[in-house]
């Protein structure tokens, strides 16, 4: 992915850029809002990572302008302001996701990659498959190796979210936000237990586990040898 990082804190920007490059992405960096806007206008990016508070032009205005100009490139806001109202303001301005500082890099990476996938045309498909695991979003059926698996509605949504982001790391917070629609950090292992229940249904009786835990980051579903 080609990613434009607009962040005035040089150290944070270097940290983000290096991390994204290490993950195989191409990264450009702008140090203020105006430069960022110009680069966004000129370049063809797959995702923006925008700090909310920027010199010269703040992140919200920057993104509003891009959206008004018809630019639908997915954008992730980074902000020190983390309350519900701030999040809503960020999403209203055209942001696709919102990450509150301080964040773990693994969280940022997972969310940026999820944004890139959102743009892909596979978005409109109603059937997903990873290895021999298939789900149909319309009929809400799950099959593995042709065998039907019964899931609770929430388990289905959990699996659906993971399948939509197959091959990407999905963090616990992303799951809580997207599957349960809650915006807080769970103190205990609530998500982990849901995952292990899901795993016991889709992976347990099969040779190759598909749902994997990525230590210190989250989960991913993929068919890797």
């Amino acid at each position, binding site marked *: 992915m080609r990613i434009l990082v607009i962040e005035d804190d040089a150290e944070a920007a270097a940290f983000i850029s290096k991390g994204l490059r290490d993950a195989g992405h191409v990264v450009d960096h702008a140090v203020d809002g105006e430069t960022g806007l110009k680069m966004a206008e000129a370049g063809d990016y797959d995702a923006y990572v925008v700090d909310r508070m920027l010199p010269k032009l703040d992140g919200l205005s920057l993104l509003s302008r891009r959206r008004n100009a018809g630019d639908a490139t997915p954008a992730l806001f980074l902000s020190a302001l*983390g*309350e*519900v*109202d*701030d999040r*809503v303001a960020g999403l209203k301005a055209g942001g696709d996701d919102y990450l*509150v500082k*301080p964040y*773990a890099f693994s969280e940022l990476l997972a969310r940026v990659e999820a944004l890139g996938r959102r743009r892909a045309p596979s978005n409109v498909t109603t059937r997903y498959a990873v290895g021999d695991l298939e789900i149909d979003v319309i009929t809400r059926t799950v099959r593995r190796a042709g065998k039907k698996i019964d899931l609770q509605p*929430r388990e289905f949504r959990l699996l659906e979210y993971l399948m939509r982001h197959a091959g990407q790391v999905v963090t616990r917070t992303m799951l809580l936000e997207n599957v*349960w629609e*809650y*915006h*807080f*950090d*769970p*103190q*205990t*292992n*609530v998500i*982990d*237990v*849901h995952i*292990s*229940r899901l795993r016991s249904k889709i992976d347990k009786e099969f040779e190759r586990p598909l749902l994997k835990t990525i230590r210190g980051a989250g989960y991913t579903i993929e068919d890797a040898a």
Partner: protein
Amino acid sequence: MLRLLRTASFRFTLIYVLVFAGSVALLGAFIYQQTFGSAEQEVDRVIDGEFQVLAEVFAKEGPAALRRATQDRAAWRDGGIYMLIGAPSGVPLAGNLTALPPEALTADAGFFNFTFERPRADALGKEAGVEIRQGRAKIRRFRASPDAENFFLVFIARDVSDRERLRERTSRLILQLAFATIALGLVIGLAFSHSLMRQVDAVNKTARAISTGDLSKRIALTGAGDELENLAMNLNGMLDQIERLMNGMKEVSDNIAHDLRSPLTRIRNRLTEALNADPAAKDEAVRATLAEAESMIGTFNALLSIARIESGEGAGAMELVDIVAIAQEMAELYEPAAQEAGFALVLKTEAAPPVRGSRALISQALANLLDNALKYAVGGTTIEISVRKSQKGYVRLAVADDGPGVPPGDREHIFQRFVRLESSRSTQGSGLGLSLVAAIARAHGAALKVDAGGLGGSQPGLSIALVFPPRARA
């Protein structure tokens, strides 16, 4: 004094006084007109009547009869004054006045006022000098025929001294009344403004003291129960809230200093040691430092959330939320975790009216209560989420467990920041979870109730409930 004159209340009093004095003057003028206006006309009518009678006598019976009639009338002493003078000779022919008053010589055909002297009688009826009296008169010429050379000057007057004196006294009284009204109004207005200014000054003084930093100052209440006291009470209430928030902020910064200093110190020590350590120890130091940083971030976020919720910010929009739905969702979210930890998670709800609040915050509070129960209900078997409705419309959202519970004496402390009861020191946690619950309860005007769990079993258990007020009162 000058300040007093500039006060709003004095300005109002002044306007009031002027309006009131104006109405007193108007009333006075009305009374005056009613009393004396008609009396004057009455006198004039009597005099005209007398002229008419005398004119008839003169016309029918001639000069001698006129003279006699004048004499008779002058003798009646009913306050009538008559004078008949032959003209042009100027000889007084009849009457009870020694000479015409000088005013008569310049008078035209109309009525005029004049003064005359009259012997004064003392209490015993004896003469005691003279007194000056006032009269109202008219003078006319009587001629035998229109072209006759000789004529009579007829002077008829009434003594109006008594009436004039009454008139003077009355007008003086009315004026005095008007002045007294103004004076009294001004005095009362000044006193009123002064007292008002004193009370407002008290408020101002308190406000100044507060703006120079003494937040504990409060406006003294007068006990009068009036609107000024009401204002003072409201201001005091506002100050209480501000002081509470300020103290909260101070507490937060104290807490941050307290709770973040030790991990920061540990981080520094660990990194210092790691500088000269072998690679394996370095890795270990980095990992430990990372974990420490993560937990500090958690603490920091929790503190900020509490502070923001308490300041009324960050709650998002308050809307009507269905507590039962939240309880169901959270039960579903936590059920696997509870089961894994060896608890049965039970949900007991009854239909409850919606509550004014924030779904995000209420679910956060419930999550914290559930986290708390999972962490501390050691040896318990059941965690119960319940939603109940009271008859008065209160909605009670509670999480109960059958763990070791909290001794009654400690129960009020559990919501304080960083309080971790002795028995739980070994467990992980920031000590902020329940403080956040308390802050969320306050933001919703909900009462917090801590009790024994009431779920049976060998341990007392713990129940923490948020009691939301009925919607109309929230």
